[in-house]
C-alpha cells in the first residue's frame, strides 16, 4: 500500500504545501489542490501502488516517490533509515584544540568554560603549556591523524589555539605554529593543515598580528555586537567592560590589512538589534564569522524564549549577510547540508569523534567544555600507546548524533541538526547526561529548516514568474 513515510513532514505555505522527508532532504512543493487529491487517493482503496495514481496527480506521485516522501512498502522507511545510519562516520581525529593557557584575562559573564564562575575558575591550571609539552602535543596529534586512516590528499586537519585566552602564552603559540609549518613538508598527513585562533583580542599588538599572519594562523576575535550594551557581558577580571579595547584591536587589524573573523556570542542584548552586527561587519570589512547561542550552565538554565529569539536572529542576520557575500558559520553549515541533501550527523567535532583537546599539562580530552573538571580527559600526550579512535570514551562521543536518539526520529530537522552540544544537554536538567537532548538546539534546527524550505519556495516562485 502506498503511504506517507514516517519521516515525512508537511509545511503549509499558504496556497501551496511543501512535503519533506527528513532524511532524503528534498522538499517537494504541491498546490493545495494536488495535496488534497493526494490525501483523498491515499484514503481510497486504490492505492496499492504508484501505478494506480489518478492521472491528475501522477507527476506529483512520481516526484514524491522519488524523494521517499511516499512509500510503497512497509519496510521502505526502515531500509532508508538503516542506510543513512550506515553512513555515520567512524571516529577519525582531524581537529586539535591546543590549550596554550587555561588562564584568561577576561571574566565574560556567559563563559561556557567557567571563567566567570569562581569555583570553576580556581580549578583551571595555573601553569601554561611548556615547549616540551607542545612538542609532545604536536607529535601526538600527528600520530592520531595517522591512526585515523584519513586520506592525506583530501583531508584538512585543523589546529585551533584556544584557552582560556591562548595569547596568555604567546611564545608557545608562536613556537607551535612555527613547528607545524616546518613539519608540513615532512609529514604528509598535515600537508593541508589549517591553523586558527579564537581570542578576545586584547593581547594582540601590531607585531603579533603581523607574525600570526605570516605563520598562517587565522584570527577570530570575540565580540558580541557594535555597542557597549551588546558587549556588556565581556568584562575583565575587575568587572570593567572591554568593548573599546576590542574595537581598537579591530581598527589595528584593519589598518594593517589583516582580515579577521568574528566570534559573536548572542547575548540577550545582542539579539535585540539585527542592524548592529551589519554595521560592525561593514565598518571593519569582516568577511566571515560565527554566531554562538549562549549555553546554560549547571547553575543557570536559559529560558526557551531566549532560544527562540536567538534562532530567529540567526535567520534574520543570515538574510542580510548573504546579500553582502558574508559567510556565517552557524547557518552555512546547515545550508550546505540542506542544499546537498546530505545528512549532517554532528554539529561538533567532538561528537563526530573528530577532535582532541590538549590541556597545558599534556592531558588529552574530548571536549574543551570540560576543561574545568577534566571530565573525559582520558589520555595524555606522554602516552605513546594512546589511540583516540580506539578509546571507548571517544567511540561513545562519536555516536552522539541525533540519528541515534529515539526522541529525534519524529523531528523534521533530523537531517540538518547535528545535535548541538552534549555539555549543554548535560546542564539542562539534573539527571541529564551527554546522551540527553540539547533542547536549545532543537529550536534553532527546526526554525532554520522551515526558513530554508520557505525561502526555496520563494525562489521557485520567482523563477516561475520569469519563465
Amino acid at each position, binding site marked *: 500500500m502506498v503511504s506517507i513515510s514516517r519521516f515525512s513532514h508537511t509545511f503549509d505555505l499558504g496556497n501551496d504545501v511543501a512535503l519533506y522527508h527528513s532524511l*532524503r532532504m528534498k522538499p*517537494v*512543493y504541491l498546490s493545495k489542490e494536488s495535496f488534497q487529491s493526494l490525501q483523498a487517493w491515499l484514503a481510497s482503496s486504490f492505492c496499492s501502488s504508484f501505478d494506480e495514481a489518478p492521472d491528475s496527480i501522477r*507527476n*506529483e506521485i512520481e516526484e514524491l516517490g522519488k524523494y521517499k516522501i511516499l512509500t510503497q512498502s512497509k519496510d521502505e522507511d526502515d531500509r532508508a533509515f538503516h*542506510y543513512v545510519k550506515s553512513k555515520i562516520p567512524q571516529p577519525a581525529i582531524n*581537529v586539535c584544540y591546543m590549550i596554550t593557557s587555561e588562564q584568561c584575562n577576561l571574566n565574560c559573564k556567559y563563559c*561556557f568554560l567557567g571563567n566567570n564562575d569562581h569555583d570553576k575558575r580556581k580549578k583551571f591550571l595555573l601553569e601554561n603549556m611548556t615547549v616540551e609539552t607542545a612538542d609532545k602535543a604536536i607529535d601526538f596529534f600527528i600520530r592520531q591523524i595517522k591512526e585515523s586512516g584519513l586520506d592525506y590528499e583530501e583531508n584538512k586537519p*585543523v589546529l*585551533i589555539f*584556544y584557552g582560556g585566552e591562548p595569547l596568555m602564552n604567546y611564545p608557545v603559540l608562536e613556537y607551535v605554529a612555527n613547528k607545524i609549518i616546518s613539519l608540513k613538508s615532512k609529514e604528509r598527513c598535515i600537508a593541508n593543515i*589549517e591553523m*586558527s*585562533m*579564537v581570542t578576545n583580542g586584547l593581547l594582540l599588538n601590531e607585531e603579533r598580528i603581523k607574525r600570526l599572519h605570516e605563520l598562517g594562523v*587565522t*584570527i*577570530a576575535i*570575540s565580540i558580541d555586537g557594535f555597542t557597549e550594551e551588546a558587549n556588556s557581558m565581556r568584562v575583565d577580571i575587575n568587572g570593567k567592560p572591554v568593548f573599546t579595547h576590542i574595537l581598537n584591536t579591530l581598527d589595528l587589524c584593519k589598518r594593517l590589512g589583516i*582580515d*579577521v*573573523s*568574528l*566570534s559573536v*556570542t548572542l547575548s540577550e542584548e545582542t539579539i535585540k538589534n539585527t542592524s548592529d552586527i551589519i554595521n560592525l561587519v561593514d565598518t571593519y570589512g569582516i*568577511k*566571515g564569522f*560565527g554566531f*554562538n547561542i549562549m*549555553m546554560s550552565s549547571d547553575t543557570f538554565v536559559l529560558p526557551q524564549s531566549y532560544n527562540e529569539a536567538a534562532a530567529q536572529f540567526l535567520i534574520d542576520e543570515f538574510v542580510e*549577510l*548573504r*546579500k*553582502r*557575500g558574508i*559567510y556565517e*558559520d552557524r547557518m552555512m*553549515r546547515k*545550508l*550546505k547540508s540542506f*542544499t*546537498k*541533501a546530505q545528512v*549532517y550527523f*554532528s*554539529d*561538533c*567535532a*567532538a561528537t*563526530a569523534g*573528530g577532535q582532541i583537546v590538549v590541556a597545558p599539562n599534556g592531558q588529552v580530552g574530548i571536549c574543551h*567544555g570540560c576543561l574545568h573538571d577534566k571530565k573525559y580527559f582520558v589520555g595524555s600526550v606522554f602516552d605513546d600507546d594512546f589511540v583516540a579512535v580506539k578509546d571507548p570514551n571517544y567511540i561513545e562521543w562519536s555516536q552522539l548524533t541525533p540519528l541515534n536518539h529515539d526522541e529525534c526520529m519524529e523531528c523534521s530537522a533530523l537531517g540538518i541538526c547535528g545535535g548541538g*552540544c552534549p555539555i*549543554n544537554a548535560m546542564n539542562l536538567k539534573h539527571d541529564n547526561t551527554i546522551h540527553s537532548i540539547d533542547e536549545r538546539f532543537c529550536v534553532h534546527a527546526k526554525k532554520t529548516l522551515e526558513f530554508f524550505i520557505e*525561502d*526555496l519556495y520563494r*525562489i521557485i516562485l520567482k*523563477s*516561475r514568474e520569469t*519563465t
Partner: protein
Amino acid sequence: MTRCSAILTRLPDRLWLNALANAQVVCAAVVVLALAGLFPILNGGKYKMSANASEYMELFGSVQDGVTTTARCACVACNACTCACSCRAIPDMGDVEW
C-alpha cells in the same frame, strides 16, 4: 442552404485562402508553444515541484566558495570543522544510492 452557408459561399476566394493560411499559422504556433511548455493548458498545467540546482544555489546569496579568512573555530561553544565548510558546491542532482 442556411443563411450562414449562403453568406460563406459569397466570400471571395482570396479571403478564404487568407483565413486558411492564418489558421495554419495559429495551429503551428500552438503546437510550438505547447512543446515549449509555455502554454499551461496544453501541457497539463505541470507544476514545478522541486527546485533545480541553480535555485538551490540562490539560497547562498552572494557567499562565495572557500572563504579563507574565516577561522575554522569562530565559535566559543562548538564547531564542526570536520563537517562544515563554506563551499557552495552545487548539489549533486544525480541518482542517490537509496
